[in-house]
């Protein structure tokens, strides 16, 4: 652990647009590009500013999708009413929205922490899947003769470890073979998916089925739920607690500061004596651990078994991290929003309207693209204003 510099170097803390830290691009000109351009030091944007852009983008995206569907002849008001009711209509639906926000929040944190530190971990999907596999393996097949709460804990630890180790593979490939993390993680996602299916077809397969799925967990191994007849499990508040801890670590500790600086300006970080290589390794492990935990919670808290198609939360986490401005608390808000969108869309699909739940993905994608555009535009506007002073 290196000492914090007595006077922080003048760096961009990565909060401002263009949304991601400077030490981030793939080409080797990234650091020189920012220094050559003699950019003024960017200040973090104000809180209201970071909040208003995603909200604007969300409203715009929802209007576009609902407007488009009403052009196709679907009743706009009926659609909105069902969607909102499905998302937050009663305490059952609110609990469902919270529960579907949980994996999004954890994979969002996985991506957010990595991106914020300049590590392009696109591999949350693979880390999430292997986390789920490890968790279900402990819970169904390799449970030691111990009381159920201990097995649940072990299962969670296994999920976290598997996620972190899978992320570690990508880190090692970069460290020792110079394979860019953005590429290795993309490919490792596919390897992980097939590995998971292999195991679910093989050693983890439930008796009496030919499908790639595990046995069901005994009820003693389910995470307790907070509200009866819902899947609002104890993992949900834990995930939100982790978001607060992540926020605190990033904003208030030396370790977090070094992560931010490594992401914002690797040159400055190196000059200040920070161990960039070690930070990248730690960031990758933490990131993988978050994704693995998402998998474990999904197994223990929601599904109670595992199949080869176990959700795309790892990919969705990229969107969540972005919409949350790579800030843990923002990511929590974004996960809540996306979770509600998904839960509502599911109800719309089951309703008489029969609209596809995939429309939620369209909304999410438009939200991100509009956020990117607005954030860039606003940053340039502010820059011009300051230069005009």
């Amino acid at each position, binding site marked *: 652990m290196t000492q914090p510099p007595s006077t922080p170097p003048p760096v961009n803390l990565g909060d401002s647009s263009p949304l991601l830290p400077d030490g981030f691009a793939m*080409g080797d000109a990234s650091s020189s590009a920012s220094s050559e351009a003699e950019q003024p030091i960017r200040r973090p944007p104000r809180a209201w500013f970071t909040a208003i852009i995603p909200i604007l983008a969300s409203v715009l995206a929802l209007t576009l999708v609902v407007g488009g569907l009403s052009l196709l002849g679907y009743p706009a008001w009926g659609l909105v009413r069902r969607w909102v009711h499905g998302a937050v209509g009663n305490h059952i639906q609110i609990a469902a929205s919270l529960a579907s926000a949980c994996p999004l929040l954890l994979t969002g944190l996985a991506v957010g922490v990595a991106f914020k530190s300049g590590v392009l971990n*696109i591999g949350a999907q693979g880390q999430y899947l292997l986390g789920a596999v490890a968790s279900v393996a402990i819970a169904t097949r390799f449970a030691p003769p111990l009381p159920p709460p201990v097995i649940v804990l072990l299962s969670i630890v296994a999920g976290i470890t598997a996620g972190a180790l899978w992320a570690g593979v990508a880190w090692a*490939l970069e460290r020792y073979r110079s394979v860019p993390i953005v590429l*290795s993680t993309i490919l490792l996602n596919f390897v992980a998916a*097939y590995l998971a299916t*292999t195991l679910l077809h093989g050693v983890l397969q439930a008796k009496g089925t030919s499908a790639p799925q595990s046995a069901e967990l005994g009820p003693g191994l389910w995470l307790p739920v907070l509200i009866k007849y819902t899947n609002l499990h104890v993992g949900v508040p834990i995930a939100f607690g982790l978001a607060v801890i992540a926020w605190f670590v990033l904003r208030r500790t030396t370790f977090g500061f070094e992560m931010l600086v490594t992401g914002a300006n690797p040159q400055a970080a190196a000059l200040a004596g920070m161990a960039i290589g070690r930070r990248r390794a730690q960031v990758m492990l933490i990131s993988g651990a978050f994704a693995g935990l998402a998998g474990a919670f999904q197994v223990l808290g929601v599904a109670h078994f595992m199949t080869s198609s176990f959700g795309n939360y790892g990919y969705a986490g990229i969107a969540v991290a972005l919409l949350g401005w790579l800030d843990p608390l923002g990511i929590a808000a974004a996960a809540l929003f996306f979770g509600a969108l998904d839960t509502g869309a599911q109800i719309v699909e089951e309703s008489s309207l029969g609209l596809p739940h*995939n*429309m939620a993905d369209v909304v*999410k994608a438009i939200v991100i693209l509009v956020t990117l555009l607005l954030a860039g535009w606003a940053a340039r506007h502010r820059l011009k204003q300051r230069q005009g002073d």
Partner: protein
Amino acid sequence: MSTAHVSLFTFISRQAVLAAAPMILAGTGELLAETAGVINIGIEGVMLLGCISAYLAAATTGSGALGLLAAIAAGLIAGSLFALVTVIGRADQIVAGAAMNLLAVGVSGSAWMLFQNARANANLPTSLPLGAGFAAFSPAWADHLPYFGPVLLHQYGLFYAAVLLAILAAIALRYTRAGVILRALGDSPEACEAAGVGVKRWRFGVLLLAGACAGAAGAYLSIMRTHTFASDMTGGQGFVVLALVIFGRWRVWGLVAGCLLFGAVNSLQQSLQTLRYTQHSAIMHALATLPFELFQMLPYVVALVALAILSRSAPGPRFLGIPWQK
């Protein structure tokens, strides 16, 4: 072409070329974009949009040509949206690319379900009408050519277009003014701007081309090779293409070789999956005990190993992924 009278080696080679064709097409577009300094990880999504657009257009109009045009149009639209955000808006390319993938999953999934519902309500089949898809060439004289006849001359039209495009791109990058400009856009955009070459205009243009290529590659998957649509039919090929561009060190020949290698490993694993149950030898018996997912995993592992071996010596365009601002 009947497969009964060709040797196994010929058969696997032909399957490899069949699988490589869309990747060569989409990969050449991506390679040109990356040469100009823009990386689009949303290429998988653009291919998927091409798949669904081609299928819907061909299924409703009964014309394969219109299907192909629809896929190219979808690619152009997706390419211009990506360019609007990354080149004009100067947003981060990785994030915008991830959003494009999400958009494609949402749009294609929604469109497919709405199409199925509409067809079911009208009591119409959702399958492609006869003649609405493309058939592969099968000239009788080609069978007389040993090996190359069955492998190269029994392919879909788009394969030849892809090869032509790759050759043109390789020549253009090396010998033409446009090629020099493209390479300079990725290595030294400020020099381009100083020389009076509009960086943004060129990057926008090359992203349109890349989008059209990826869209057409999608059409290849849905209305040429399979005559069906499935929501996961691109199966990660767009992501593999990204790896293969680096594998080929941003050279067209390297990319084409990578696509053929990937196609070969893929067709080999598919053949092995069936052969291990029908052929009786010690090796096949050993292979038969392995789960088939391990075979499906093989191409991705090969891509990773290839990257691990080659990546160290592969300096890409200097300004890859960095938005340009005056």
